[in-house]
């Protein structure tokens, strides 16, 4: 017995009467395989089936011609009328067919050289013939065949090859017969196939000479889910690798900062809109954070007051906030490294640093918007650095990140001079990637002829949006496990 037959019998034995669909589920057989097995089993009377019949009717080309006019015998009767006609006048092909059928049905008779309708023929020429009516109805709608199926007219049409009928049976249910149960039991006794291999069998070589029960390799399975890194983490790590490859050293800094490091040190005036409650999260506890370096605070105060003229408030600078950009980290390191250089510590110039970190901006949070976003900030502290150098390092960095086509345009940021915006080509569009520039002397506190600082701080999610099909940055944070599984593998 074939394994498909066996599995059908086994399923029916176990579960009783099944529909075809249930059987397919139970046996994991394909429909063709199952029907083939059922057919075999039924001829051996091992299963019984309930079937539901349907018919498929096709009208032949000849039938189609008649359906549009009438059957030849009817056309003939109409043509010859009550009196009949000379046979000599009826030589057409269809007329010949008409004569033959009219005679056979007793609708007309040949008298000498004339064809004469019988009484039945005369009546038929007025009321029509059932076969003709049936043909016309079936031609119009195949379903009409059901009405005529048992009638002589339908049989005649089929015989005359005017219609072609195919019986189509569908199985509504299948049941195992008593003989089937016996056959299965017998078969099982004889079964020598190994279902699954185990430790004992391997050790004892009990498998030798036996057959492994084959699997249906096409049968569907639930795929295993791979645990993956988060797509944003992958991008962050790609960026970190790109920096390291270009000789940069990774640094990091606090997320909770006094406004001083986020704004004041970076020459952002105290009434700048970016410092509004609309943009920055101010913390309630703690509400103030100290800046240890009193001399630095004094210098920053001087620079602000001389450039922006208003009074610079220490209180405002010490407000505790969540950083709104990683440039605060760059700022801390610019201050540290230049401070060390000024106090005589030897640094091998240029010093190249980077950080990739998260920031928070006071956005209205909804499914499309989040307060969280990442930035990568880089700085080069050195001698004789130029705008052309800045463009070079950013071009190389983005090339490594898969964005080969980069453009720069002038842009104003309070902390740089000159300032530039990076644009990356995505399809036909130029997408804003972020800002860059040469840090202002007011910040570095040193002449450019001695030390200058190139700096930039573009967004991270932008890169991800350009490279992957993600609708919004908000999707990246707190999405469902299904989303993580879908995006993690990409």
């Amino acid at each position, binding site marked *: 017995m074939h394994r498909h037959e066996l599995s059908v019998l086994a399923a029916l034995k176990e579960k009783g009467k099944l529909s075809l669909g249930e059987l397919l589920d139970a046996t994991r057989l394909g429909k063709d395989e199952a029907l083939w097995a059922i057919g075999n089993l039924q001829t051996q009377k091992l299963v019984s089936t309930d079937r539901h019949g349907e018919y498929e009717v096709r009208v032949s080309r000849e039938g189609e011609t008649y359906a549009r006019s009438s059957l030849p015998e009817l056309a003939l009767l109409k043509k010859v009328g009550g009196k009949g006609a000379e046979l000599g006048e009826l030589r057409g092909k269809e007329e010949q067919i008409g004569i033959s059928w009219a005679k056979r049905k007793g609708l007309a008779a040949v008298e000498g050289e004339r064809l004469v309708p019988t009484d039945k023929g005369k009546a038929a020429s007025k009321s029509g013939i059932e076969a003709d009516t049936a043909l016309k109805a079936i031609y119009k709608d195949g379903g009409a065949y059901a009405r005529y199926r048992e009638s002589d007219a339908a049989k005649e049409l089929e015989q005359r090859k005017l219609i072609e009928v195919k019986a189509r049976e569908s199985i509504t249910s299948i049941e195992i017969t008593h003989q089937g149960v016996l056959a299965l039991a017998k078969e099982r006794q004889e079964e020598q196939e190994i279902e699954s291999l185990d430790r004992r069998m391997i050790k004892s070589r009990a498998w030798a000479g036996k057959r492994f029960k084959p699997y249906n390799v096409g049968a569907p399975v639930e795929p295993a889910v791979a645990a993956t890194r988060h797509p944003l983490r992958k991008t962050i790590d790609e960026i970190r690798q790109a920096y390291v490859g270009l000789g940069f050293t990774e640094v990091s800094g606090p997320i909770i900062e006094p406004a001083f490091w986020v704004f004041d040190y970076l020459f952002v005036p105290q009434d700048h809109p970016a410092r509004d409650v609309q943009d920055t999260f101010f913390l*309630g506890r703690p509400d103030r954070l100290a800046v240890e370096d009193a001399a630095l605070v004094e210098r920053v105060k001087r620079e602000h007051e001389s450039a922006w003229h208003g009074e610079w408030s220490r209180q405002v600078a010490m407000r505790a906030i969540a950083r709104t950009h990683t440039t605060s980290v760059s700022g801390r390191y610019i201050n540290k490294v230049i401070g060390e250089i000024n106090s005589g510590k030897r640094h091998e110039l240029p010093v190249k640093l980077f950080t990739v970190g998260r920031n928070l901006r006071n956005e209205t949070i909804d499914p499309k918007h989040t307060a969280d976003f990442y930035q990568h900030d880089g700085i080069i502290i050195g001698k004789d650095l130029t705008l052309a150098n800045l463009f070079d390092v950013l071009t190389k960095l983005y090339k490594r990140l898969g964005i080969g086509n980069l453009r*720069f345009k*002038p842009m*104003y940021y309070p902390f740089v001079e000159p300032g530039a915006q990076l644009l990356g080509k995505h399809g036909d569009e130029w997408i804003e990637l972020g800002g860059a520039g040469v840090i202002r002397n007011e910040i570095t506190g040193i002449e450019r*002829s001695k030390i200058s600082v190139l700096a930039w701080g573009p967004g991270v999610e932008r890169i991800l949006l350009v490279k992957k099909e993600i609708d919004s940055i908000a999707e990246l944070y707190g999405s469902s496990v299904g989303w993580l599984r879908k995006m993690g593998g990409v």
Partner: protein
Amino acid sequence: MPVSIHDKKYMLKLLGFKVSDEELVRNIENMGPNVKRIDAKEIEVEYPANRPDLISTLGLSRAVRYYMRKSRSFAYKIKQGEALTISVGSHVAVRPYIAALVVDKMQLGEDDLLDMINFTEKLSSTYGRQRGRIALGLHDMREVKGPLLYDAFEDEEFIPLGSKSKMRYSTVMDSDKRGRKYIGLCRSGGRYVALKDQKGTMSLIPVINSERTRVSAGTKRMLVDITGTTREVIERVADLLAADFMDRGFEVSRVSIRYRESSRSLPKMETRRFSIPLKQIDDELGVTVGFNNAIVLANKMGHEAALIGKKIAVSAAPYRLDIINEQDVIEDIAVGYGYDYIQPVPVPSSAIGRVEARSEANNSAREIMIGLGFGEAMNSYLTNEETNFAKMRHARETEYIDIVNPRSGMATMLRTWILPSLLRQLGQSMHDSFPLRIFELDMVFGIRRNVPAETYHLAAVSCHSQANFNEAKASLEGLLRGIGVACKFAEGRDESMIEGRCATVESDGKIIGFLGEIHPEVLTSFGIEEPTVGFEIDLNGWIGAESADSV
């Protein structure tokens, strides 16, 4: 960046030459602004916040004309003498400074008037910080009878712009929407800041002008007042406005401002001069500009320039409020040169790159979690008390960092632990195939001795019908073994976990975290329908609180 919308027909009229949309957009953008939209009627331009001279259509077209070298800048000549005197009283402490100028020989078309009004409005709201730093007023001089007095006055009556009847200052302040918006800027000690002439109130500053001095297309002579908190700023804005009016072909005369101790004759129309060695420009930009070219580039940006020895002497355009020092001039020359033409030049460096020890450590822990079958999740640092405490059956602690200005109830504090974020995600994942296993390694926030503490935590959850304590313990032990942390488990308690199915994790004599089966009430509050186990540990001890810092 702030946005200004320009009428295209008017713009082209002011430009005075034919230009395709494409060429116009390219030139505007190469100067710095972004063109958001251009159609048959309008051009919407984002201008840099430090360039208020680009707000007006006149200012933008002036910049484009110079940039495209269609015309050269000219020296602004202000009329001799002072047209008017404004005395400053002793009560204006909230808004102590005023500048003013008188514009003559005006011929205003409707489009000019509209551009001027847009300009002054936008200037006050953006550069003027919602009229706090500066506020502007325009007055028809026909109705003005000098001398003027700028002071804070007792409550009195005048007819505000657009009104038919007299109103008291206090009524305007309380009934008018703008009044309420600006009230902090103009009322002090029961007095109201106003500008008056011999006929009465001209302006309740910075809220509304009087109907009497309303400016119209028929105005031939106009007074502009500029008030604010910083003398230098309003005086520079007076220069900007004077240049704008002269570029429209009008005449500008000065106004004398009499403070108690001193007086000023404004606008000063001060020219800032810079002398910059050409080599310095080349050195900072990394291109060779060339002598003649340097002058052309300065002119393109609207500045007067000449060569003196090996230096270029630049007189900055008086309307360029952003030019503070020579760095600003060098940037302008770079913009004139065109960023697109600056060829990248490599930085000579043999530095070897290095990642931070901390981020590498974190990544190795993440790798082990992924190996254990947990997918990596990332969640917002922000949460609210409901999620962080209440849903976890925790009493609200006091040592957490809260936000004083949240825009939504979703983000009122910084999270103190990660488990609530992961449980929230599980609640959203009930239609995904089980088992659900995720982890997150990132920052949590607290306060230690009044100082914010940023700590790396690792939390993980596993959610499926068979999830139990032992699974969580097995995963956590697997992780700790993988990262080389020796640990001990002891019976523990956490309100978010089922009693008797919770353990603490101890390493080096310190409790670093806990694990267990999540309490069914917690599951319900997050919409989780299957048993869930999890753990959360503090990794700072392992990572080392500070990164190895040898920059």
